[in-house]
């Protein structure tokens, strides 16, 4: 099997969800692009500066990477998102602790492959483990999501949160309906303890988006879960509608997404639909609540 075949296989292993979920992006929003100024006195200042600018990366480092520097760090963050999509739950959430070593190489003209040794942290049980991972960023006209493969991370992934997950699942399966107007966390970093598992779920679901959107020029975290609402249970899966604010460290922007997803202890998180919201400029993005 050629390299492409391996990559396809890895892709299938890593991102099967993408075959089922629909994704909507906003129309090319004119307010986001560099609009023509309305007053003539601005033209001299904007002369020659019309092209939309991205943080330009020069030829990316190849070979052994400095684990402190951003190329290895960005690739490692993608591994975090991948782990959360596969193994995350209301009681299991992964964070990147440290990059120990990294290596990058160009793959023909199809992309770049990173090999990483990282330590990963399961946040809730506060357990750490060293893992090895490979991240492939495909290059192409159409933006494709990175492909991730993880190895030697088994202990971490075997962490048992079954009883808590089951209890939560039973509690919300038939009787309770969750609806919160509160942001998670609020402006002060506070979350009600009974909402914490839903904050975690929001992060896990967002990880599908963050994984899909990641490139060598992004570094995503969840800034805030703006809203999470429980819908009617379907096929024994709890179903949720969720509005999240992401943060991309590189551009410093706050992309907003709406998601429809399901969860059960057995099925994990499955994302049904995602939609990026258009960038709202200033003032009343949303009524202010703490």
């Amino acid at each position: 099997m050629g390299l492409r075949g391996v990559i396809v296989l890895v892709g299938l292993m890593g991102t099967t969800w993408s075959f089922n979920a629909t994704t909507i992006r906003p129309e090319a929003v004119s307010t986001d692009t560099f609009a023509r100024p309305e007053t003539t006195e601005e033209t001299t200042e904007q002369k020659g500066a019309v092209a939309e600018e991205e943080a330009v990366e020069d030829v990316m480092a190849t070979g052994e990477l400095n684990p402190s520097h951003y190329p290895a760090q960005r690739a490692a963050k993608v591994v975090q998102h991948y782990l959360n999509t596969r193994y995350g739950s209301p009681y299991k959430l992964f964070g990147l602790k440290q990059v120990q070593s990294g290596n990058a190489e160009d793959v023909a003209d199809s992309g770049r492959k990173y090999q990483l040794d990282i330590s990963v942290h399961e946040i809730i049980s506060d357990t750490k483990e060293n893992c090895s991972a490979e991240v492939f960023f495909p290059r192409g006209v159409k933006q494709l999501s990175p492909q991730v493969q993880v190895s030697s991370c088994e202990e971490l992934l075997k962490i048992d949160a079954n009883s808590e997950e089951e209890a939560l699942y039973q509690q919300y399966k038939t009787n309770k309906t969750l609806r919160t107007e509160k942001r998670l966390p609020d402006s002060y970093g506070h979350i009600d303890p009974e909402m914490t598992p839903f904050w975690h779920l929001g992060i896990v679901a967002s990880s599908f988006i963050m994984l899909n959107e990641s490139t060598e020029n992004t570094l995503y975290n969840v800034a805030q879960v703006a809203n999470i609402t429980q819908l009617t249970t379907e096929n024994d899966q709890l179903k949720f509608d969720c509005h999240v604010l992401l943060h991309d460290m590189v551009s410093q922007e706050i992309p907003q997404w709406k998601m429809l997803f399901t969860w059960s202890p057995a099925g994990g998180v499955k994302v049904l639909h995602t939609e990026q919201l258009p960038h709202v400029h200033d003032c009343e993005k949303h009524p202010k609540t703490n």
Partner: protein
Amino acid sequence: MKRLITFAALFAAVLSKEAFHGHQVFRIVPKDDVQLSLIKLLEDMLELELDFWRWVTPLDVRVPSHSLQAVKSYLERHSIKYYTVIKDLQALLDEEQKQMKLATYAWNTDSFDYNNYHTLSDIYSFQDMLVAEKPNLVSKIVIGQSYEGRPLNVLKFSTGGSNRPAIWIDCGIHAREWVTHASGILFAKKIVTDYGQDTALTAILNKMDIFLEIVVNPDGYQFTHTKNRMWRKNRRPNPGFRCVGVDLNRNWNAGFGGHGSSNNPCKNTYHGVKAHSEPEVRSIVKFVRSHGNIKAFISIHSYSQMLLYPYGYTKTLAKDQKELDQVAQQAVAALTSLYGTPYRYGSIITTIYQSSGGSIDWTYNRGIKYSYTFELRDTGHFGFLLPAKQIGPTANETWLALKVIMHYTLEHLY
């Protein structure tokens, strides 16, 4: 004591039914006995109906709304320093009755709630209280005004001398990075508490001055409290565009307008129409230029847990890269020693991203060798929404690193 005061006010409120609308409480700081007797004369003007709560300096007095103008004119005419501690007593009483949070309203910097995030006006009050309590060590300099006209306050910590070599620390250049403002407040308190107690800090302050700007971007900070918690830039409208704001850390004259900033006013890294176009930046530039003797310049941001040195706009190594790296290593070791918080360190462009028009690149190019940027907690789990209970630990560990840099500067003055 403060409970007694509030109880008394409440008692009166119950009796007189919302009698305190628009009443303000002034804290008056007479500088000598002459001023003190002038204030005593005020009490004799019965028509003003002043209610002195406290007759020990600083004096607290409740001023009914009908007397506000008269009292203010009187105090200003006689150059008597005062500031407003409570802007509307009735509102405060209503609030307290609702929430029973007497502790939130600090009467001095010892009762200030350091483990919480504060409004802009509370931060300004804190600054004034600190100066009032320690006038021999702390003074306030207003270096300019924000776009929306708010004062840009810098606290100067000095034990004397004249234009001593100085250290500059700033927080809150980006509005949403709340832990930086909160840490700045703690740094200020630490300086006054530790002077005379902590060997390193005492040595530093005996030879150098410290300048601390807790809120570089007050308009943005206010906006994060009232409208959008994720706001980053200042609040300058961009003529011809629907989008507001300039990224104050892309507006400095170092690689200005290059890659690593945006020319699109709708972007969060928009650099502005030209270098130093923003009043918040211009006022620091003017201050640094006219002071002329700043030896270390440290800018506090969040989040990522990093200690960074120049450059951000170019891959060219800083001339002092090796030394800056060594100092960073020591500073990070000190930080980590407290709680084990891991930090990375290196130049901006290699460690986080390419970034042009940044403050420490400008200060470094001006010859301020020890130019550093901190990115405080955390690494993305809470991000900008760091829980308030982490403010203390964050500020405490960061302070250790700051002391390393400041002490190193002291030992290597140039």
